[in-house]
């Protein structure tokens, strides 16, 4: 499903070039659940952004469902994202001017879906927010906002879901509930899940854990024994 080959990312700083990722090779099969873990500054978020086509690598290539993202322009990558990809972010990224329902409707409306409202309403009920449809993000708790974000991420039935520290801004109890929800819907929809986390409990629920250290994978092809 996702294939990263010799992926490198270098940024120019006042002190010279800084290598964030060094020749990363990674293959993720359809339906896999993968956790990318590592210390702060190890390059986790950068790797996620490259895999999702949000950024361009300095070298190497990313293939998503056989399509090479690195040769595409930004609009080409946007098209791929709209077809295959969903996101859940640490800081939720709900649009503050839209209600919970409208936030979930948005990706459906962009696909010109006529059933956007009904579908969004179903999804919000699925994440337990049927009584919060008309609430604005600043009227919702952190956990509720992340539920809305999860509902929005699954709205377009993406084949890959990328999650960046989905529990990073939540207390452990709420975080646990969100993880439960995320994996539950993931199973239902048979989505490939790639998530970045510091949370060992969350990582341990994934089939596969990728450890990053100073921009390189330290455990290539290591699978999570606790699952198998």
């Amino acid at each position, binding site marked *: 499903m996702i294939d990263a080959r010799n992926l490198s990312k270098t940024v120019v700083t006042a002190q010279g070039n800084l290598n964030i990722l060094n020749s990363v090779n990674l293959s993720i099969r359809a339906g896999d659940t993968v956790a990318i873990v590592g210390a702060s500054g190890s390059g986790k*978020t950068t790797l*996620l*952004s490259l895999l999702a086509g*949000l*950024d361009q690598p300095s070298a190497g290539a990313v293939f998503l469902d056989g399509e090479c993202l690195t040769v595409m322009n*930004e*609009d080409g990558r*946007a*098209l*791929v*994202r*709209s*077809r295959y*990809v969903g*996101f859940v*972010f640490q*800081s939720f*990224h709900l*649009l*503050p*001017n*839209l*209600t919970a329902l*409208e936030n979930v409707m*948005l*990706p459906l*409306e*962009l696909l*010109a879906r006529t059933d956007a409202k009904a579908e969004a309403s179903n999804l919000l009920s699925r994440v337990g927010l049927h009584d919060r449809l008309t609430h*604005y993000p*600043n009227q919702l708790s952190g956990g509720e906002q992340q539920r809305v974000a999860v509902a929005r991420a699954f709205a*377009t039935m993406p084949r890959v879901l990328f999650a*960046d520290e989905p529990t990073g801004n939540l207390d452990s109890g709420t975080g646990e509930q969100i993880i439960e929800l995320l994996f539950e819907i993931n199973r239902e929809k048979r989505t490939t899940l790639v998530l970045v986390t510091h949370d060992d409990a969350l990582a341990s629920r994934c089939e596969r854990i990728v450890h990053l250290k100073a921009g390189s994978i330290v455990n290539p092809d290591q699978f999570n024994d606790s699952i198998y």
Partner: protein
Amino acid sequence: MTQFIRLAIRLLVRDWRSGELNVLIMALVIAAAGTAMTGLFSDRLNRTMVTQAAAFLAADMVVTSHALLPEQWLEKARALRLDSARSTEFSSVLVHGEGILLTGVKVVTDAYPLRGRMKTMLSPATDEQETSEIPLPGTAWVEQRVLTALDLAVGDAIEIGAKLLRITRILTYEPDRRGNLLGLTPRVTMNHEDLPAARVIQPGSHVHYYFLFAGDERDMREFKTWLQGRLVPGQRIMDVYEDRPELGTAFNRAEKYLGLGSVVVVMIAGVAIAMAARRYSRRHFDMTAILRCLGVRQNRVLGLYGCQLFVLGLSASVVGCFIGWLSQEILVWYLRNLLPEHLVKPGIFAYTLAILEGLVILLGFTVAPLLQQRRVSPLRVLRRDLVPAPLNRSLVYGAGFLTISGLVWWNTGDSRLVLYFLVAASGVILALGGLVYFLLQATRSFWPYLGLNSRFGIQQLSRNAASNLSQILAFSLTFTAMIVIFLVRTDLIRSWQAQLPENAPNHFALNIFPSEWQSMRTWLESEKIEVSAFYPVIRGRLIRINGDDAGRNAPAASQAESTLHRDLNLTYTAVLPADNRIKEGRWWTYGESGQVSVEQSLAESLGVNVGDTMTFSIGSREIVVTVGSIRSVQWDTMNPNFFIMFSPGTLDGLPSTYLTSFYLPEDKRFVLNHMVKKYPSVSVLEVGLIIKQIQTILGQVTVAVEFVLVFALFAGIVVLFAAVYSDIDERIFNSCILRTLGAGRRIIRRNQCVEFVSLGLIAGVLGAVSAEMLLWLLYERIFDLPVQINWKVGLVTPLAGALLIGLFGLWVTRRTVTQSPLILIREN
């Protein structure tokens, strides 16, 4: 596509519901209301002034001719469904008993006047009344002066040529009475049907024919264009701008001012929109990043915002237009005693224009912030600190300049004004902007020496120098515009009042013999009458320029052509009259004979320059003179003025009479009777009515001018609001962080005070300096007013800026010390 537009509108409605669009909507609505109100009011006032001016012509357009017009021309007018009338004017000597009087006779057809009304009295004891009638055949209406001079009364008969006419009314007002010799002599009006019987028009008679036309504006334009190619020497088209220079000057200046006023309102409103759009754009970076992340292409994102802004602009312009219409209706009602009784309704074009202007302003000032959305990276969803690279400043300012230049040109049609605007604005932004940027950076060296009460405020200013610079430029541009509009208005009104002071001459005395003029002056002065200079008048014709036939290059229907076909009033003087200004060359010195000074517009029309020679035919002599200077003449002072003046000694030995003007207060009218007896050859002409007409128009123009100022002020307040709000999120956030770190209310408020006051002070200095620059250009090149540096502006503007922005800034940021920092941070 429909779905896409629906989505854009839905997102817009959601933004609007959440209050996100409030500042932008307010700026847009007020911009549109301001421009609509100014535009609609100007349109009404202009069209009313033109209608009134048409009444001064008694028609929309008049063709003057020394002969009857071809029947084909009148047929063309009929084909265009134009109304037409004719007046024929000539001078005639009336004799009654022992009295002899030279009068100006006007013969009119039934439809006369097509615009305006005559006024008459049935007897000296009755009130003046407007009338749409003309004298019946066999009757005449005459001025009171005719009755007094010839000892006549209403009901008596007078003889015009071979026709005996009975006087039935006293004529008190003719709308199209002209300032020439015929117009100034005592007047008689009679019916066209009596003309053949009078037998006054013989081959070679000195007769002026006036063919009057009125009708739909478009048809009039078509007719005028059609006529222009067919005019022959001696024929001329007159309209409000060409016919009466004393009104034309006031019109031209007033139109320029109203145009400038509209542009100033647009400019200030544009600044407000630009600031509001910048904030709107910044607050949508996250939305754009999410949309990009959800797979929306760059151009589609732009299209989405573009569609939203168009809908927003159109709605705001329509609402603004309505508010503008309502406001000007209220204003018209409020000023009902000052404005003309019948103010025409605004034209549909004015409404369309107001809405279109709203959209153009929106486009010009939002295109740059909108384009920045293209640069928002989808990666911002992971790294919120990723702010899109700022746009090229030349694009930001270029779009604004282009919009304003276009609107200046559209509103004034004056490409010079556009050029001056561009020069002044670029000068301010480049020179002063650079200086401010440098100063803001330089304050960094003071940071270590500043206390807690002011350090954060100053740091905030210099740390965001680029962003604060645009805010300072917005404020200073607004100050500049407001100072300019205020001072131009004050000086224009002052100059109008100076042109026609209370004691402007209201009588002309003509035909004064050379032997009498000195004794007459002494006598008038002994009667305590203010009298202008006495000028000799010699009649002559211009025949050659630089040895060639003077008419060779004169275009048909031009001022030059009309000058060459009539006797000119020539004079000589050693002293340049106070209301004349030398534009080229120099005024002669004592003993420099053989020189001539020509009025500017005539010189242009004749193609005459300093150093050229002109040959005049005076009596049996030919006089060759050299052009020593070109002069501008202020015609509306009611002092004697001349197109052509000679240096003393040049016209020696030629027969002349003298001319002067004087102011006669109402309570000294008896002096006139004494004068007529003491100097029987002198013709005295009253011009009080003309002065009254000019004063009425100037009064209306003044009201309009002051009205524009109010709107500029209103737009200025919106800029204040929008500009302070444009960066408010960051300011509130910083203050919240300071509060959470334990900073007290006093420290925060003092720092905010230092920041806003400094901002206002700098903007005030910039605004004052650039206003002085712009005023210099405008006065010197456009309004032809004397230039002087206004020191008060230099002092008051920075202080007013500091106070205004300081107070407003503190008011807007008051929540930072009254609400929980946590709530504010969450909101932002």
